[in-house]
């Protein structure tokens, strides 16, 4: 089995994590609903969702966090699943048609732990998710 260290084997404060860009569609949301077993109609039923305060379907929060996880895996490799931590807040929903940009920046790296700020923005620049991630090393 290959063990790649990720693109930031020696992170330093201020360093940007490799951004991940994902286009959200209803089909992708439906596919995540099937895989996750979370068939909440707020995600999958446009007619139902149109009557809610969101006015339409929204992506699962955990789908968006999966994109964040991909960025952290790309940045830190096996250090992310082996001891990584993430604390995130959902500020606004991701909707079908949105282009999400997941980004992050190293806040502190002392050789023991690396702390990062992470965020997800839509094409309008609105912050949908923000939070902090931490990995070993």
């Amino acid at each position: 089995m290959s063990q790649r260290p990720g693109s930031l084997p020696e992170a330093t404060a201020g360093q940007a994590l490799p951004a991940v860009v994902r286009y959200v569609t209803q089909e992708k949301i439906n596919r995540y609903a099937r895989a996750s077993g979370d068939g909440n109609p707020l995600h999958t039923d446009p007619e139902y969702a149109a009557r809610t305060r969101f006015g339409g379907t929204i992506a699962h929060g955990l789908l968006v966090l999966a994109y964040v996880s991909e960025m952290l895996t790309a940045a830190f490799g096996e250090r992310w699943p082996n001891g990584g931590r993430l604390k995130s807040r959902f500020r606004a929903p991701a909707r079908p048609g949105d282009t999400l940009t997941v980004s992050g920046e190293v806040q502190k790296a002392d050789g023991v732990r690396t702390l990062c700020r992470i965020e997800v923005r839509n094409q309008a620049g609105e912050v949908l998710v923000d939070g902090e991630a931490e990995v070993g090393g």
Partner: protein
Amino acid sequence: MVSLSGLAKGYEFPPVPFELSRDWVEEYRAAVEDEATAEVGDDVVPPMALVALAVRSLLEQAALPEGTIHLGQEVSFRRAVRVGEPLEAQARITSRGERQGWLLMGIELSVEDAAGWAVMHGRATITVPGA
């Protein structure tokens, strides 16, 4: 099925055993368009898949009330999990309160391996209308 909003603080869901089949992991990877995890190891499961499975285990035991919204998620991973590992998901209601007509709930989620060691631990914060 009981509604999640009807459960009291401290309620513990019965543990749910599951095995991460290759088919399911591939379905999950496709759903989240994951390309990076395979670079770590062919059999390594995308870590957020553990959270998804823990939530799925919970949803098999309690219905989400209409309008439930996921406000926040904390998660920590203890080690990488590989395809085919037998695991067990557990969930517990850790907080419950009301704010402006909304019910706020904290749900602790954890996944243990066959040896009983935690491989994932997390906390979801959700809000439900009409408290």
